[in-house]
């Protein structure tokens, strides 16, 4: 994979992009939008990732997984870097990632849009509901209710459908 001092960046990108996220294993790091860059520096592959949340405990494992798979594929000396700006947003989850979430019974986030208050006070949300209705990933009904603002991971909330009565998870706009 490494010819002389020129690393095959597209091949490395393909390998890196296929690595699964440990918290949402149905998604790859590319689907989730945390894979920010794959480049060559001095003949070695450098992968850049960004955390979803400040306390994300999986980031370290993802980095090891990336390094391991790249090394295994012949990219000796591949390294992984963290980038913290700009901050990850749920808008970086790809259309393919959203489709996979939906198929796994997890409601994907609606558009977070630009930072709601880039340089002013952040508005309060005093209702026990997301900003607008989340459709049930099982039956498609918009008649759903939030049961908990935080789920098994910080990026998810718990919801329940009032039509089919199934509980489901929902990836929050962030």
């Amino acid at each position, binding site marked *: 994979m490494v010819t002389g001092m020129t690393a095959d960046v597209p091949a490395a990108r393909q390998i890196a992009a296929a690595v*699964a996220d*440990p918290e949402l294993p149905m998604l790859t790091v590319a689907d989730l939008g945390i894979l920010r860059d794959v480049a060559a520096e001095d003949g070695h592959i450098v992968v850049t990732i960004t*955390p979803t*949340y*400040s*306390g*994300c*405990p*999986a980031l*370290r*494992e*993802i980095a*090891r*997984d990336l390094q*391991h*798979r790249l090394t*295994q594929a012949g990219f000796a000396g591949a390294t*992984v*870097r*963290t*980038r*913290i*700006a*700009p*901050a*990850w947003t749920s808008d970086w989850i790809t259309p393919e990632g959203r489709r996979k979430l939906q198929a796994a019974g997890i409601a994907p986030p609606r558009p977070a849009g630009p930072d709601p*208050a880039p*340089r*002013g*006070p*952040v508005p*309060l*949300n*005093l*209702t*026990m509901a997301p900003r607008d209705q989340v459709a049930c990933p099982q039956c498609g009904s918009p008649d759903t209710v939030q*049961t*908990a*603002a*935080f*789920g*098994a*991971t*910080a990026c998810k909330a*718990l919801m329940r459908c009032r039509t089919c009565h199934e509980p489901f998870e929902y990836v*929050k706009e*962030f």
Partner: protein
Amino acid sequence: MTDDEFTAYHALADETEDHRWAFGTGFTDPLEGIDTSVPDGVNAAALSAYCLMLGDDALIYSHRLQQWMTRLPELEEETAVANIALDLLGQARMLLARAGRAEGAVLAEGAALAEGAALAEGAVLAEGAGRDEDQLAFFRPEHEFRNVRLAEHLDADFAQLAGRLLIFSAWRLALFSRLRDSADPVLAAIAAKGAKELAYHRDYAAQWVIRLGDGTELSHGRMQAALRSIWPLVDELFRADAVTGDLPGVAADPAGLRAEFDSVLGTVLAAATLDHPDSAPMAQVAGQSGRDGVHTEALGYVLAELQSVARADPDATW
């Protein structure tokens, strides 16, 4: 394990030195690979002390929230409070790492550290390097912690948890919103990410304050009493500290956060049918409080627990 079976889950059980999970397990620097040079014109000693303050707020408050685990009324609140504590621990790690790197820049210049950032006796540093997050979290004595006293408070009941979380997150969100424009790009990036997290924390707390305040006679009374007991710790959040004045364009003036904080609290308290608490601010000691390393008795108990493993066996690995 064959190579094909390698996943992040296996990595958790992998016995190498560079990636485990708590003190003694070789956490890596959360700012690894990020340019942490101190921008020209920024006072590195003051920047280090400032990041230490904000990092200590998050570290100590995160620990207090962690102490609620298994004691909350419902599983949904367990997951919420655990996630909030984890977000704050993540903020603490980055801020303490940033404080350490800025400290390294000061040491490299051979200059004096700001008061409150003094090296612990016997601390061994690589040339030009500051302390890492573990040294800062586990090997500083109580008087070197710079958190506000609100962070170390022990919640007596769930109403105090909700009220204190509302106060802490409304204040910190107002602060982080401003720090997104900090002239230190590392601090600006930490704040931009943290602000998004804090908006969820504040909403969660506000919703509970409203449910309890606008609930039964009993829940209303408990919520009102909780706010009254926490309120003496609020004034300190907006007091001038020793380093902000040395960081123009980098830090945010604490007094400038008060109007936004009052407006948020006013909205929530009105929706919750609660009266604005009027308890007098807690006394300072010779004009000093949390930001000067002068704490309540509560911090000693937090640190005794937080630091016990590290202190008992500084070389422990597991």
